[in-house]
């Protein structure tokens, strides 16, 4: 396993993947006094060459370290980035390699890589439940973080209609209208808290018999009522 320089790695990918290799970007930066190089490579590929690219990466080093799959909602498409770390174990040779794919919103499918890297199971399950990307052939497609009773079709990381807007519950006393959530959070957030504060229901009020009329509790409420000037942040 010999160590290739970032340029050689990009060349080898370009040669192997041919047309489905879209573009690449190499980031290098000197670090501290001895000016060693911090290197990161971003490679954009099409979905059909995705598994082939992962094969190539595992050829660079036998068990490549897949740190995480990050996904972001770009409106009409979802960008998945597989963050790999290769050449670990060799002094100052390690570089982080980001394999970027963009999937159209209407066809969110990606083949699984758990056969190549068994450790990818958690992050694939998380991407599946959070972004709604269907991982084809995933061995265990249970939810990772979301509770079982979490409704289908709602994906927390989405910024479009399947996003979590209606489920947001802001802490009592520091609330803003949850219905105008999208509008209130786009313009500078300070102003949104000045209007009259609508107190959403919360657990304690659902069953008043539990929260007995402890004098300490009511004092806490009075305290919060007075301190309702525009949201003072930490």
């Amino acid at each position, binding site marked *: 396993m010999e160590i290739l320089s970032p340029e050689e790695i990009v060349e080898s990918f370009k040669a192997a993947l041919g047309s489905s290799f879209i573009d690449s970007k190499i980031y290098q930066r000197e670090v501290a006094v001895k000016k060693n190089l911090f290197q990161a490579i971003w490679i954009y590929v099409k979905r059909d060459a995705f598994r082939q690219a992962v094969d190539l990466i595992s050829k660079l080093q036998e068990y490549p370290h897949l740190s995480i799959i990050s996904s972001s909602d770009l409106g009409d498409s979802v960008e998945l980035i597989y963050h790999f770390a290769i050449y670990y174990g060799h002094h100052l040779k390690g570089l982080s390699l980001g394999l970027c794919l963009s999937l159209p919103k209407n066809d969110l499918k990606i083949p699984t890589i758990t056969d190549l890297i068994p450790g990818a199971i958690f992050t694939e399950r998380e991407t599946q439940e959070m972004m709604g990307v269907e991982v084809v052939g995933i061995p265990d497609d249970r939810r990772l973080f979301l509770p079982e*009773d*979490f409704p289908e079709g*709602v994906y927390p990381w989405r910024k479009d209609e399947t996003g979590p807007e209606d489920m947001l519950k802001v802490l009592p006393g520091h609330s803003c209208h949850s219905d105008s959530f999208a509008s209130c959070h786009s313009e500078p957030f300070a102003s949104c808290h000045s209007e009259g504060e609508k107190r959403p229901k919360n657990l304690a009020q659902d069953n008043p018999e539990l929260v007995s009329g402890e004098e300490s509790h009511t004092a806490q409420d009075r305290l919060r009522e007075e301190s309702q000037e525009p949201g003072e942040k930490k």
Partner: protein
Amino acid sequence: MKNKEMETTYTIPVGPIHPALKEPIRLDLKVDGEEIIDVDVAMGQVHRGIEWLGMNRNNPIQNIYLAERVCGICNICHPFAYIMAVEQAAGITPPERAEYIRVVIAEMERIHSHLLWAGVAAHEIGFDSVFYLVWRVREKIMDLIEYVTGNRVTKAMFQIGGVRRDITEEQFPQIRKTLDYYKTIFKQLKTVFLDDRTIRMRTKNVGVLKTEDALKLLACGPTGRASGVTKDVRQDQAYGAYADLDIKAITPDIITGTIVGDVYDRIIVRLLEVKQSIEIIERCLDEMPPGATLIEPKMAKLLKTLKTAEGKGVGRAEAPRGEVIHYVRLEAGRETLATWKIRAPTYLNLMSIPTILKGGQIADVPIVFASIDPCMSCTNRAVVIDRKTNKKSIMTYEKLHQLSVEKTRRLSNGLVE
């Protein structure tokens, strides 16, 4: 200890509120008598939606203090990785002195985190006197952290483009005095942990993770290194001042000559890393370059550059438990981050828990689970939304617990007659 006459397996719900697990996580163990057959890890109890806050409420500078509270124990590695990611995305390079100060604080935190872990591990196997003694030793480093950064736990020391406070020359003697104290006490720590018969009995060949599995399941940090996987971000990638100090990943064969990958090896790796951190801090103090500590002292100017910046950045740092990675995407004209992805080391180490625990005994669960030094509050920061009104759905957790209690009682009645 098989029940000869009847094949009874029942699930012991360990967590989410359980004294062995300092944090809420739920391990469902399928047990046959005392032997564990299958383990299922259920997370999501500590979720606080940090990423959603980062993407919707805070500007990048406020996020530093949010990143710091991802985890109370390792609360330097998260801001460290986050700041490197933002610097890469916005194209900012911190001054050299700041890089050295960051490494000094990160290594101080590693010492306190490993000593904390050693105490908790001793407590898990019922060795409370070691827990008290190790935590008394740990108070010294907490005083040093407070002396240098101003607060024991949440330090608020880092800033995008450098460090908020300097470590001045007058503070160096005090730091060296505490480090000397640790050098003298290190021998005692080693004998207490490595040569004590009962600890050896409870940790040798317990919770073994073979190198093959560790590589496959991407175990990182001391858990991976104890199984022979030499992944250490400080050694592999040039970040902070680590590049100048040529760090070498610690594996247990330095002392025992072999790599077994059991709880005993994880103790060895963590103790040696404490010694390594002491040496790193001392070298940093000797080679600390002069110069500014902040590239852009005026906050408003920094915020403006961040607002106009456009790009992606990945920050990887070596936390006491393993590799932490933050991915940040900045969009021009947007006040908050476009995308923020945090991943803590325990996220990866949890995948090897089922393979480690299978075949062990219930009595081993706390010590084996503690041996990967889990930090649930890190692992659960992802975005989770729960329907707020659906009363009936919340009942499923009660029903689940009720089911397992009824099953146990039914089985235990069967056992008693």
